[in-house]
């Protein structure tokens, strides 16, 4: 009720507003701001996801569907996102922070394979099957990630196969490129040995 009253008043009379009217106006202002803030967060999420290779070919409305099924997680420094040999269930996309991908050694310190930063992703093979993780992932600094689960993607494939076909083809491309790079590396090593 108070909101309607304050809206109906002429803005020119603003200096003469009562305390209650001012509070109502403030409430409307904050409400609007919070709404915009929420929209901004969603827009930011979409903008961020658009930069990830899996989703770069998706249209806005398709990206919105994906944004609904990804989970946002916050990790503290030195926290494991996943550990080697654990069953893989999700792909992780780094929103901010740094993650060390490492191979644990039995009687020595883990061997660091790579350090990944913003926009990088890890554990993509979990989108295909439940095979165990081949390495561990540990945060080096406080890190924010998005998690996309294999089962959610499978559900999405039932309702929106157009979206998942893009994601799976991007995944195939990424895996194919990695295989090509590995083959080239092996070839180089073999030549060097020869």
């Amino acid at each position, binding site marked *: 009720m108070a909101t309607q009253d304050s809206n109906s008043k002429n803005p020119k009379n603003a200096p003469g507003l009562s305390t209650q009217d001012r509070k109502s106006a403030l409430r409307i202002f904050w409400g609007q701001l919070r709404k915009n803030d929420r929209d901004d967060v969603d827009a930011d999420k979409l903008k961020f996801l658009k930069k990830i290779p899996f989703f770069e070919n998706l249209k806005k409305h398709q990206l919105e569907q994906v944004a*609904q099924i990804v*989970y946002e997680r916050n990790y503290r420094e030195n926290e494991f996102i996943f550990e080697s040999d654990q069953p893989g*269930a*999700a792909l992780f996309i780094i929103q901010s922070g740094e993650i060390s991908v490492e191979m644990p050694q039995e009687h020595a310190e883990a061997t660091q394979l790579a350090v990944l930063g913003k926009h990088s992703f890890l554990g993509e093979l979990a989108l295909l099957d439940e095979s165990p993780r081949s390495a561990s992932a540990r945060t080096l600094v406080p890190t924010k990630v998005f998690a996309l689960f294999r089962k959610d993607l499978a559900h999405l494939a039932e309702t929106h196969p157009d979206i998942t076909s893009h994601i799976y083809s991007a995944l195939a491309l990424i895996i194919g490129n990695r295989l090509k790079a590995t083959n080239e590396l092996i070839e180089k090593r073999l030549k060097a040995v020869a």
Partner: protein
Amino acid sequence: MSPAESAGSRKVRRILIYTGASVVFFAALIGVLHGIQPMLLPLVLGTFLAYLCKPLVNYRGTKIKKYLRISVIFTMLGSTIYLGGRLIKESLPNEKEKLELKVRMQYRLNERFDGLMGLSHNGKGNLFFKTFGNELVPLHAKVNDVLKMSDDEKKLFLLYYAGYNDEEPIQERYYQYYLTNNKIAKSEAEKVRHSAQSASTAPAEGAKVEEGSQLSHLMHIATTWLIFPLAFMFILLDKGQIIHFFMRTVPNRYFELAYTVVENVDEALGRYIRGTIIECLLVGLTLIIGFYLSGMDFKIALVIGLVGGITNAIPFVGTFIACIVGAAYSLIAEDIHPLLPFINHDSLLLAVLAVVMITHLLDNAIYQPLVVGSAVDIHPLAVVLGVFGGSMMFGFAGLIFAIPSIVVIKVVTETLFSGLKDYRII
């Protein structure tokens, strides 16, 4: 304080806060659940139906918007429940029919008993009577006691016989059954009838007083059951917000494991609920068709079939109930119209038993493997114990929740323990 000590005390604080918050949360949850107890049944039934309709809503063969699809399904479901409810209500015997049924049951039971024991001719009985008479006669007397009409029922029966409440008068033959059952002289019956007729205006006044309380009762039901369509709609409209909300509370270490458990439970529960409801429908339908073909009145076949179908959610109970009720009816049935030529009054009992047996075989061989599958393989004994335990502890709600609770406990236990090992938490 060193960084290690600081981290240690922070960890202790964290554990204390999490434990405290969990205790408060669960205490509040129990309090809320206790407070909204009457709403739990409609809430759970709404959720069950939402699970049942989920594949229809997510069906991708159409371009119709999701909320429109949900509205259409909801309207169709509502209409089916309304029309089905009306049909069932019409099929259930009214006050007069209940009295007729009682009289018929007692009469036929005595007739069949006398025939079986050979008491109808000379009263001395046959070999069967001489062998088992000592055990069966007291049992027969007990059943007769149960079926015996009270004085009020007798008055009401005679009122209906004379023509009461704008109903067709009770047929003469049922009156004769009544006389035989009560072994009273006609003059005595006339006396009771006369006294009953003089009191025939009394029940009409009482009806008005009941109307007011019925209205408030209906209002109470409407407010309690309002949650039913809301639960149905919101669960179908949910785009994962519910699970996202709960997953936010899970610590990072258990994140993937918790998701796997929740997803497995959701999948198994959905499959089990959908499978069981469809299986119950198929069993009910088979019983209705079978009984109708055997010559039972459609109304009776519908009621027995529905009861058998609904209770079939509990293994063996559905077919057992259908068998008992169907056999009892076959003993008192008078006007049967069998669509199968080889069935008559004498073979109706066998036909009913055959229908129940065929239904049970179809259920085990086709319905269950086809619609329920081996999604959640629960031992029938566990289900029966769970159902009876649930009903003893929580009444009707316990009866409904028992099987889904067993499914949840089984899937959670299985997934959780294997997951805890796989994720090297234990």
